[in-house]
């Protein structure tokens, strides 16, 4: 093949080679998005670096460092770590649910000494890697058989169910949709998706009964926002007012009335896109969505160039999760889907979400660097 003909032996890449192959374009786009985040958090803080903007910047720089470090690690390490990471994530998810039961209430965090861990965030990455590894180990023929589809289905549904009862509807939906997309990319037959959809339809009443009161309210409010304009519908209505009143060019930086007068809820986290829309208008929205689209484009380009199934699948999975974050968040603040509490990657304030997103991007860069490496069934490098 042409690439091999260039004489690059992917197994023996030196650190210098890797650094040269780093996707700096991706890093630049990520920095641009995080920069918009800093700008909006500066505005949300009332034209002040405190309490959010400066910390957001520091966190991004640290997370960028982590991402670059991850990028330089050999992809085989990540393949080998996929299942152990999944196991750890699963145990932590069970632990957090038990802690939630004891603590009587919603629980997403696990306090381990001074560190707070959000197991669902670990699980998102671990699930993508594990599914990639699983499908990497299958032949095309096996992929077509039902028995081989059952284990990965459980790998998605079990953690999703655990997250659901935390309760965290947004992350659960994200896992199921992200996992589903990976099944699709792996080549699972289309009729199986049809079957799953039918089953999901049948499971809806069960799902409904599992939901908490506030989750049901959110869905009912989504269906009929006028149901309770001062209660649950208030947030989404105020968000739409803020967005719509921004118009084409926005009210100007720091001039958003809805956000600065606190009509907009959670303006520094889930509703930060609304704030951007209010202050920079449709132009600002399109710029940010454009930056996200470029990242997705790069991710797909990487996936298509990879030599190993693991790398392709992981790249698609990461791109999918990243896309779902963006889509669910923006669809939520524009009133297209119920309010589920999904942050906007790299823009919303929050350390854990930032770290998760950047770990994903780091893995994507690692995949990019090692795109030419061919891997055997069990992760061993194949030299041709």
């Amino acid at each position: 093949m042409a690439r091999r003909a260039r004489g690059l032996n992917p197994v023996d890449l030196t650190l210098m080679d890797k650094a040269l192959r780093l996707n700096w374009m991706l890093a630049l786009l990520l920095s641009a998005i995080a920069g918009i985040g800093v700008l909006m958090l500066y505005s949300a803080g009332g034209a002040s670096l405190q309490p959010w903007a400066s910390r957001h910047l520091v966190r991004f720089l640290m997370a960028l460092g982590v991402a670059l470090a991850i990028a330089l690690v050999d992809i085989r390490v990540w393949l080998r770590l996929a299942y152990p990471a999944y196991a750890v994530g699963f145990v932590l998810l069970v632990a957090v649910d038990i802690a939630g039961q004891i603590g009587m209430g919603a629980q997403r965090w696990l306090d381990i000494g001074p560190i707070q861990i959000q197991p669902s965030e670990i699980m998102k990455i671990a699930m993508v890697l594990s599914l990639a590894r699983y499908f990497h180990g299958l032949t095309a023929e096996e992929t077509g058989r039902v028995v081989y589809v059952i284990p990965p289905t459980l790998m998605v549904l079990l953690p999703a169910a655990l997250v659901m009862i935390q309760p965290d509807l947004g992350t659960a939906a994200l896992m199921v949709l992200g996992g589903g997309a990976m099944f699709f990319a792996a080549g699972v037959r289309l009729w199986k998706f049809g079957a799953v959809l039918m089953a999901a339809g049948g499971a809806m009443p069960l799902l409904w009964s599992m939901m908490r009161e506030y989750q049901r309210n959110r869905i009912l409010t989504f269906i009929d926002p006028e149901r309770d304009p001062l209660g649950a519908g208030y947030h989404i209505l105020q968000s739409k007012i803020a967005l719509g009143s921004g118009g084409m060019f926005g009210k100007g930086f720091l001039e958003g009335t809805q956000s600065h007068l606190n009509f907009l809820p959670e303006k520094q986290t889930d509703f930060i896109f609304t704030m951007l829309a209010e202050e920079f208008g449709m132009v600002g929205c399109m710029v940010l969505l454009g930056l996200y689209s470029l990242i997705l484009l790069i991710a797909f380009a990487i996936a298509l160039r990879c030599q190993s199934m693991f790398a392709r699948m992981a790249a698609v999975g990461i791109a999918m999760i990243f896309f779902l974050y963006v889509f669910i968040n923006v669809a939520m603040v524009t009133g297209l889907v119920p309010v589920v509490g999904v942050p906007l990657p790299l823009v919303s304030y929050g350390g854990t979400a930032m770290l998760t997103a950047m770990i994903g991007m780091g893995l994507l860069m690692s995949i990019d660097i090692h795109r030419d490496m061919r891997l055997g069934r069990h992760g061993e490098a194949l030299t041709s």
Partner: protein
Amino acid sequence: MATKDDVSRERLFTRRALLLGAGQAGLLSVLAGRIYYLQVVESSRFQTMAEENRVSMRLLPPSRGRVLDRGGEALAVNRQNFRVLLNAEQAPNADAVLAALSEIIPVGEADRRRVLRELKRRRSFVPVAVRENLSWHEVSRIEINAPDLPGISIDMGQTRYYPFGPTAAHLVGYVAAVAESELTGDPLLELPGFRIGKGGIEKIHDVALRGRAGRSRVEVNAVGRVVRELDRQEGTPGGDLSLTIDMALQDFATKRLAGQSGAAAVMDVHSGEVLALASVPAFDPNLFTSGISARDWDELLHNEYTPLINKAVAGQYPPGSTFKPVVALAALSAGLVTPEFRVNCPGHYDLGDSRFHCYKKGGHGSVNLHEAIAQSCDVYFYELARRCGIDRIAAMGRALGLGERTGLDLPGERGGLMPTRDWKLRTSGIPWQQGETLVCGIGQGSVLATPLQLALMVSRIVNGGIAVQPRLTRELVARDGGFVARPPEAQSIGVKRESLELVIKGMEAVTNTQRGTAYAARIKEPEMAMGGKSGTSQVRRITMSERDAGLHKLKDRPWRERDHALFIGFAPVSAPRYAAAVIVEHGGGGSAMAAPVVRDLLIETQKRDPSRRQPPGAPSVAALGRG
């Protein structure tokens, strides 16, 4: 080695990945479309909603105009008042907010229920006053706890204060909260704690005193706190209203009548300006501004001396002998009697089978008009009344201002009653009896007059028969145009000067001759001397047996059944300038109980007369006044 299997898998993956990418691109396009819809298509609608969110219109209540007496003394002023308001729009759970508030300052159960009731009734953006007249301590406690009290705000308002309390209560009236039936749609009336005039001048001139509300557009945040003021349109404060009342004289009159139930009116006979208009007992109007307690209200309502009624204009009494000048003028004008005409009074007067008594048991003997007025001979006036007939008497009464409302700017004024034959037939269906004419001739029976009407009657007699009108307001000083009240061009009542002189002379004799009924109450200083007429009106008919048994002595009867004591007077006799009328309810004899009050009032009035302090040749009467 790339196996065949690997190649087909890669192709499948590429196809599927491209499909996923296309799917994502499609969904992102949906987002872009949605954003376009919200930000471009629907933008103006959302911009309006954002403005509605952000901008709140606040009414700025105008400060109420003051009420002043003729010398500029304030009878009604405004004082600072801190109130705590609850805005329903910002407090979805008013109950919980009130509960939280009651832990900080005391909030009574009655207040709590009232607030919840008003919240339901009013538009949600109109705040409701929870409590008024907060102390500084309470204000600061609320401010400190403000974050826990959504929708609660402190407002510095004004309350009405009446420095003279009960002394001018009936005149000035009072202000109180707007009742639901008084809402006109003017949002000013819906402001929390807004007060409108409910009595007296405050009620009649409410609109002039109220002023016009200003408007302030403010930017508010999500919890309703004002961030900044966008613009402001100042309102117009209410105008200051000057009355004709001389507060010192009003105060004097009130004190002079203290302990009684009665009324007094003093007016200028030329200009019609009312200098004092007292009704006792009265109430403290300050009780009403902050909401009167049920106990206080009950006490006022059930007091035998009726403190809530302005007896000076709303009390109707048989005028008794004070009515005799009217009968005399009616007879003189009709040419039925001459000054020399004499009637012999044996102490009674027979008409058919009925016998009408003179108050003097032995009779007055032969009396002419002058003596009959001075000694108040009933028999003489029975004869005059019989000769005149009731309709002539009523016509003269009306010409002198009786029988209809004077039109003074006070609420609740009543017109008294001047009976005629027509009236009797119309109202009862029974024809007028001549005996009734006789009874009316001495101011009893169905004749009724208010104290103000009696003062007006005297004024019109002593000013030479000019139909002067009583007036209470002098001037309104307002930013958007006030007024200066000018007396209307008064017409003559068409009574000959000589006739008036005869009656005036008779009234002078009442107080200034030894046989006059009120000689004891004369004014001894010649330059201030007064003339007048006493009256004692029966509240209850005295039966024959009682008369024979001598049981009609005043002190033997319960208060409610005792006679009303009346006196009307004018001074100085040399050039009459002031008229006064006094009634002491159930006070007994007019010359004994009411005449001294009139005497003291007229002395005080003349002492305070500014013309007395001016050098000779000073401006004429009409231009005088201390305003």
